[in-house]
């Protein structure tokens, strides 16, 4: 992990963000992991044009822990797919780590996904027939790492999520929380620039959810850039910054001064 201190990592300010998102065509400085400028995504649904994103400007600095929120249909999944390099925007720029990825071809995007992005999905998306270790090794396979090195790296990633003892179990022999931790280990194994979590607690009970959220918090504290897509406010409340989407546009971008560790406190605060 990076060796800078993170608890006090600087949150980007609104002014800084506006500055970086407005300079079309200019490569953002290395501080900015993600910069989108006027991203649009349109789908042709049998002749009818659906505008999922209508010009989204988002800038995320290294080490930020950001939640993207919004009701279903707000375009947050589309934004996540673009940020995760699974999809490309119809229009606009997307800079990931100083590289313009919005105009890349499929195979280049695959390489970027492999190196820069760690996905954590709601439904875990583990290969059912492979062991936990093998699942974690998978990104390294596509990175072209040797078998021996792969094993070691994957074992270390599983150690980080405290699953060393379940290394040789298959997903159906693991609990939901354990599966999600395997998925997190897999997302981390390539040291990605961003950890991209899509409703990571959506399929988990509340106890397991807070367990998993704790893992994300720890990772964020260690300096991992985390982007979490969710529609649950109490999950989003764990993040230090919440970007809310509505009708394919950013409706609000709020930062929290305090790093919230205490889930119940937030819920109380909201009630009050």
């Amino acid at each position, binding site marked *: 992990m990076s060796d800078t201190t993170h608890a006090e990592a600087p949150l980007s300010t609104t002014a800084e963000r506006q500055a970086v998102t407005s300079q079309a065509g200019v490569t953002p400085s290395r501080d900015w992991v993600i910069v989108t400028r006027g991203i649009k995504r349109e789908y042709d649904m049998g002749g009818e044009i659906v505008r999922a994103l209508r010009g989204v400007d988002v800038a995320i600095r290294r080490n930020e822990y950001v939640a993207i929120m919004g009701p279903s249909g707000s375009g947050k999944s589309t934004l996540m797919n673009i940020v995760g390099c699974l999809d490309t925007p119809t229009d606009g720029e997307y800079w990931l780590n100083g590289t313009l990825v919005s105009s890349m071809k499929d*195979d280049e995007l695959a390489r970027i996904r*492999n190196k820069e992005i760690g996905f954590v999905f709601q439904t875990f*998306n583990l290969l059912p027939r492979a062991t936990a270790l093998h699942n974690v090794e*998978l990104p390294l*396979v*596509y990175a072209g790492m040797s*078998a021996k090195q792969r094993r070691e790296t994957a074992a270390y990633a599983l150690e980080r999520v405290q699953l060393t003892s379940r290394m040789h179990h298959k997903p159906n022999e693991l609990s939901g929380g354990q599966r999600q931790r395997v998925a997190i280990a897999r997302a981390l194994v390539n040291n990605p620039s961003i950890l991209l979590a899509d409703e990571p607690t959506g399929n988990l009970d509340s106890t397991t959810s807070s367990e998993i959220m704790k893992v994300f918090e720890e990772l964020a504290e260690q300096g991992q850039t985390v982007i979490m897509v969710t529609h649950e406010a109490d999950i989003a409340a764990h993040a230090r910054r919440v970007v809310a989407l509505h009708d394919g546009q950013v409706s609000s971008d709020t930062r929290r001064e305090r790093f919230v560790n205490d889930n119940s406190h937030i819920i109380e605060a909201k009630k009050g």
Partner: protein
Amino acid sequence: MLFFESIRLALNTIRAQKLKSFFTLLGVCIGVMFLIAVVSIVEGMGRYMEQDLIGKLIGVNSFELRHRPNINMGDVDPSVWESYRRRPRLYHDDVAPVVEALPADTRWAVVSDNNLPVSSRYSGGPRNAQISAIEGDFFAIRKFVVAEGREFTPQELEMGTPVVIIGPDIEKRLFPGLNPIGRELRMGGLPYTVVGVLETQGSAFGLSFDNQVFAPWQAPVHRLLNRVPTIVDAIIVQVPSASQMTEAQERVRQVMRTRHKLRPGQPDNFSLQTSESALEFWNKLKRYLVLAGIALPAIGLVVGAIVIMNIMLVAVAERTREIGIRKALGARRVDILSQFLVESATLSTVGAAVGIALGVGMAEVIAALTPLPASVAPWSVVVGVGLGAGVGIISGVYPASRASLLDPIAALRQE
């Protein structure tokens, strides 16, 4: 690394779904099995033809002067038959001039043969056997070995003494449980004394070589073998080495052309038959058989390819989510493509391997149960494995390319 992983995955699939895999691989399996079996039999027959059958019928470094070839495999045109029929026969008077024209170290023999009933007082009714009247070094040229008794003496050959050497079948039938040497055998109403019994020559295509009786050419029986008693069926010539074959044949040809008063330009009206000329037709037939041995399994392979393609399409559909996951984690198109190609090639190669094993087994069974010999050709095994992998790759191309073109987002969404 991804390569071995794909192979492992394919083998796991086969292990997990045995029945489905069995049906998947059946086509390739049967195709390769027949390829191996047919080629084995063709090879075995070829070896048999070249080494045993023709060798026994004609002998090494030897040729036979006949009025027409007696080994005619395959179609002979009716007009050719007609010209054969009009050819003059060979007569015993031809023997001396032919032998004189040959170098001193050349072996020669004269033979006439026909099927006639033979009988003895030790068994029931007469039995048909191939009767040959011989002169010269017949046994030496044909490598016939007298197992019991003795060969003919030069005096017996010259005088036409009524003595015979018989094959083991005749011994068994006409002298059951008896030592035939010195006993009497009757042909054409005359008695002959058995002086020798030949070693067994075995059989080809169910036809025994042991049902034979040999007598000196001058013995009375030669009168029964041909319409005109002085006709000889063949004059056999054996030269010491292969290099002398052409020269010897040329000399015999000149003598016979003179004796038959042929003008230059007129074709020969006799035949010089070598083991090669006898094998000519076999070689032609062999080409067709090998072609058939490849064409018939090809049908099985095409069916196999279609089945594998279908199974791979199902596999791609079933594993859409897996493909989505792999793509999200950084698999490029070529990674997905090669994964499924290797998988279908592995499937198909396993089918081919099973087919090779079954084909070898089938060849062995056929060799054991029928007179057809079989010998597995190493090249057919290589071709079998190659075909297996090839069929797998070809039938995997479409499903694999479909898999590689899947949109990761849609693939991940699939349940």
